[in-house]
């Protein structure tokens, strides 16, 4: 067992790549900040018209009229079922990735094994589908609002 990383050069290269992400982050902050700054200065020197109305001040929500507030809005409980399903199928795909990077070298035997794995996933998918797990069930007995914690309860739990 060695006490330092296998090759410090590779390790440092690897960490250095985070430097690019850091630089990207700075650029990502600077661009909108400078645009806002230019816009603000434009108002100051009266190069920009200033005619406010309620629609302009509304929160942008894909062009739809906004509904509710942005504070502790309750999600419909039905979303959780889809989130759970997504989580499961999404994470199981992690097994496909190592195979995919080496698919050529591993040959048909591994391809067969992966097919079995995908077939098992399909069984799970078929079960969800036939059981109505992917329906937007309007007749769910509990209304969404009651099926989720009160904001107070969540804050209490987090405390």
């Amino acid at each position, binding site marked *: *067992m060695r006490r330092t990383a296998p090759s410090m050069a590779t390790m440092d290269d690897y960490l250095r790549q985070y430097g690019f992400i850091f630089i990207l982050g700075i650029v990502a902050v600077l661009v909108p900040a400078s645009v806002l700054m230019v816009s603000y200065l434009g108002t100051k020197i009266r190069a920009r018209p200033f005619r406010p109305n309620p629609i302009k001040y509304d929160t942008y929500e894909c062009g739809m009229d906004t509904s509710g507030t942005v504070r502790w809005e309750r999600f419909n409980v039905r979303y959780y079922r889809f989130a759970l399903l997504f989580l499961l199928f999404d994470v199981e795909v992690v097994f496909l990735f190592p195979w995919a990077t080496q698919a050529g070298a*591993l*040959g*048909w*035997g*591994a*391809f*067969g*094994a992966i097919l*079995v794995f995908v077939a*098992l996933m399909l*069984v799970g998918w*078929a*079960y969800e589908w*036939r*059981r109505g797990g992917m329906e937007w069930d309007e007749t769910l007995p509990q209304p969404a609002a009651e099926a989720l914690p009160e904001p107070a309860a969540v804050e209490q739990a987090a405390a």
Partner: protein
Amino acid sequence: MGLSARDLLLVSPELALVVLAIVIVLLDLVLDRKGFVLAVGIAGLAVPLAAALGLWAIVADGGPEMAFHGALVVDAFALFFKLLIVGILGLLLLSSADYIERFSPHQAEFVALVLLSAAGLMLLAGAADLIAVFVSLELASLPVVALVAFSKSERSIEAGIKYLLLSGLSSAVLLYGFAFLYGATGTVRLVALDPALPTIATMLPAAGGALPFGGFAVLLGVVLATAGFGFKLSMVPFQMWTPDVYEGAPTPVAAFLATASKAAAFAIVLRLFYTALGGASADWSIMFAVLAAVTMTVGNVVAIAQSNVKRLLGYSAIAQAGYMLIGVAAVASDGGSLLGAESVLFYLGGYAAMNLAAFFAVIAITNATGDDRIEALAGVGRRTPLIALVLAFALISLTGIPPTVGFMGKLFLFNAAVSADLAWLAVVGVLNSVVSAYYYMGIVRTMYMREPAEPRRIGAPVTAWVAMGVATAGVAVLGVWPAWLLDIARTAAGSLVP
């Protein structure tokens, strides 16, 4: 790489169970009638049974086989547990025929989850590397979590959440231990761990070779892994979940946990410590001896105060785990004799029979009365003489009174302890058996001496009678003629040490 026909043949019992579970779920999706589920499940068990018997014949001739590049081993030891688990599964499905009606229309899911969990347990018995141990352990426990929470009752959900959180905690601890074992030895293969152990002293010069297990990292790994497995074994101090889960879970699930789950957990503990850490047996033998003494004492003493029969069976399961830990601890100092492992295997077989008989009788009675307090057993001896007899016989066996398998099993365990210079442990075991007689016989007294609250007779479906009959016959036959199971257990334990 990839799948080979030989690998698939070697895991055919598990494969058959998984395919059976999938077939049941898919059939349930396309068919409207639900009655077929149990019949298909029980009939389908013939395939894994035949596969395991066939593999036994192969292994008996040609020695152990490795599958999937050494991740799984198919030897007499693994097959002993596979056969035991298939047997338990068959009886359990038979006995719960009318119990699972209450889960309608989800009987198919219930049966499929039980089958998947059993497949995990069977893989666990044959796991030969740490990855396989972890994955099969989770395959075994996640379906059980769902099964524990299967009833609509609040107690069931509570038990489910308790089992889930503690099981998640225990597997995290277990994994942390595995990480250290892997880090210290550089291998995940159980057979390779032992030769790799001496190198730890060179890896950690500060620790030197003086520490138990040859190094601090391995010591940490072993302790954490023992804690993780201790949860599955309901070993003190990791037993807190047992009574709650037994009480809250559907009774067949509790029976499954008490017999099949426990058997597979003992299988992997025996394999890990005998095969992978056999060289350090002097170090862990005393650890298990102390744990065994504490576990059986706590289980038995707390069981006395119980008023719910399922809870009482939970504490009884803790105490029985303590007895079996005696066998794990009783490794001969020269490492030559496998008397301890052998007696654990024998006791697990007998324990499955007597515990299943007790659970089947409780299922039949509580199904009729809808009340699982010990009070409600009053006068059952008059309301249903035969079921009461089954329960009484099973409890006599659990106490360890001849002519039952419980007596024989304890005899072998205590004998193994004495021959491994752990006579004090055998004495603790005998004292505990005396304590346990108090509460086991208390139930028998309630059944026969007390007046029934209502005179209505209690019946049971034919399938439940068959299950009770087989389990009781097992208790009696093994009690008077234990030699054949002991021979099989000796063969199985023999393959632990290469």
